[in-house]
């Protein structure tokens, strides 16, 4: 059989039934669009997790002072607990073999002044190790070093939000600011990092040396967190156990509960992955359902066609069409509907993905393979739901078909 001729013929027949064909194509298109949105959303969630890992640092364990509970998926630290010290951080570094680096930190909301401007922001005391562990990059100026930390130097590194709000976008490096009452020199600006998984703007903060924060600014003896980097992800669990035991000994807890909370990055990411999977599953089932509806549409249209076009089938058989020619033709028609549905669906899907990211604030990633998956699925649906009507049509005896009313 001449395939191109048959394809041309199928097109002519489909255009002859314009309304029915276009309804069928649109139901198919909705299904494919849903698939594309689903894949894009899935990828977006994936990217969010990758970003989270990147901004957190890799192979990380976080020790928080006191209890950290998750409220609505966000961390909430209860009360002020003063038992976690920089000495704990040093002990972890010295005694746990799998630990590569530790970065204790403490933070407080304080008033910051520059000339006549002032604002409240998070002042975070960190050691130089924090920059490496947590992938904090410097956009302008410089980082502070361990000497500056040890001597409690008055150096400050500001986030991009501070540059905007306090310095009105001016280059702040070299300017004198006051944090509380103490004077500091701005030595650098952090590269923008956006909002973290807890909804905290990581650019609305000022980093200063930890010792400066503890001794000069806050006059405290404790830290709030210790970030710990482990050599490899396989050692996360063991390191966590070692750290727990060490801290319990140092804090002389005996049979009392922990006065700290250890979060292991693997668990955190696992939680995030699970919620991403739930989302993907949800959108996925909607997509599958829409594709199914599209498929049933094709089934209905082709079965109706099979009944209405019995005379045509009979005539084709009379002029020499074999059963498989009839089957091919009907299957081609299903495939054309599915294919066109796929193409329109791809366009609709790309558009809805764009809408979802623009209006809904979803992280979505457009990708060619999402479109590919959509088109492939539509073809499969066209085939699967086209086979039954096609074989039904081809099973008709020529004379029965010709006699049909």
């Amino acid at each position, binding site marked *: *059989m*001449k395939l191109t*001729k*048959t394809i041309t*013929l199928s097109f*002519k027949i489909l255009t*002859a039934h314009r309304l029915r064909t276009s309804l069928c194509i649109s139901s198919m298109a909705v299904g494919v669009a849903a698939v594309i949105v689903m894949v894009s959303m899935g990828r977006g969630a994936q990217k969010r997790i990758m970003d989270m890992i990147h901004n957190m640092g890799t192979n990380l364990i976080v020790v928080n002072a006191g209890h950290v509970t998750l409220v609505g998926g966000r961390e909430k630290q209860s009360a002020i607990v003063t038992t976690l010290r920089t000495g704990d951080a040093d002990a972890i570094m010295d005694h746990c073999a799998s630990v590569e680096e530790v970065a204790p930190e403490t933070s407080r909301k304080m008033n910051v002044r520059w000339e006549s401007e002032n604002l409240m922001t998070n002042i975070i005391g960190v050691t130089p190790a924090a920059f490496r562990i947590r992938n904090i990059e410097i956009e302008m100026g410089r980082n502070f070093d361990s000497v500056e930390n040890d001597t409690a130097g008055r150096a400050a590194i500001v986030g991009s939000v501070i540059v905007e709000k306090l310095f009105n976008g001016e280059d702040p490096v070299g300017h004198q600011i006051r944090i509380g009452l103490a004077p500091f020199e701005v030595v650098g600006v952090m590269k923008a990092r956006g909002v973290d998984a807890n909804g905290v703007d990581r650019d609305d903060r000022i980093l200063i040396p930890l010792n400066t924060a503890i001794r000069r600014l806050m006059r405290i003896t404790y830290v709030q967190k210790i970030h710990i980097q482990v050599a490899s992800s396989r050692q996360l669990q063991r390191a966590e156990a070692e750290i727990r035991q060490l801290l319990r000994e140092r804090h002389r807890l005996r049979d009392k509960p922990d006065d700290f909370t250890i979060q292991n990055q693997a668990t955190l990411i696992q939680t995030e992955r699970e919620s991403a999977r739930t989302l993907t599953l949800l959108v996925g089932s909607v997509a599958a359902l829409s594709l199914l509806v599209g498929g049933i549409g094709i089934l209905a249209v082709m079965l109706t066609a099979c009944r209405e076009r019995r*005379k*045509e089938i*009979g*005539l*084709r*058989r*009379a*002029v*020499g*069409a*074999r*059963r*498989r*020619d009839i089957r091919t033709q009907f299957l081609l028609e299903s495939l054309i509907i599915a294919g066109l549905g796929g193409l329109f669906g791809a366009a609709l899907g790309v558009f809805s993905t764009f809408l979802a990211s623009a209006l809904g604030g979803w992280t979505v990633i457009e990708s060619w393979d999402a479109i590919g998956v959509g088109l492939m699925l539509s073809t499969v649906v066209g085939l699967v739901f086209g086979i039954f009507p096609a074989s039904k049509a081809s099973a008709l*005896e*020529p*004379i029965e078909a*010709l006699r049909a009313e």
Partner: protein
Amino acid sequence: MIKTVNIEKTYVKGSVSTHVLRGITLSIDQGEYVAIMGTSGTGKTTLMNILGCLDKPTSGKLELDGVDVYKLNDDALSALRNKKFGFVFQQFFLLERTTALDNVLLPFIYADRYPADAIELAKKSLASVGLEYRIEYLASELSGGQQQRVAIARALINDPDVILADEPTGNLDSRSTDEILEIFSRLHKEGRTMVVVTHDQAVARYAQRILELKDGQVRESSVANPQK
């Protein structure tokens, strides 16, 4: 060229069986013009469908050029219909929202080879039935007589040995009927075997030989017309 031996056809509906054909034995030679006549319900159309391999008898044998047709598989029967026969039906059976040209081209789609000059051949075939000015018309835009002529052009496109026509003028006025019958006479003169099923004496008169169907049996009619 066409030979049947003791063809019987019985339709069974529920507990009632109707014996339409009760042992038809006939032969039609190459180049003959044969009319099959009979009142309605005598099985004329059933017989024609069996001769054209569109339907199978309950029992009996059909030979085409010495080949036992019922030993062929379904694909071979399709090929036979494609090459050997040209069908003309009472209801024309054209693809409605399709041009005259595309209708005529239809059998080529199912032929072994789609000729390079298919369109030229189809135009020639349409010209031979006087429709060279209606090539791009949709079937539904043509009159009954014109539609039947498109059907004839389609039947001729694969250069078949036999034209099988089932009440070809049944839906036509007398002028169109004359036109169709003129074309049939010409095709016969060109050497084609013509088998026309009709209840109409006027149509049968064009044939050389008339086979009369009655009570499921066939007999040569007295009104044969050998000089034609």
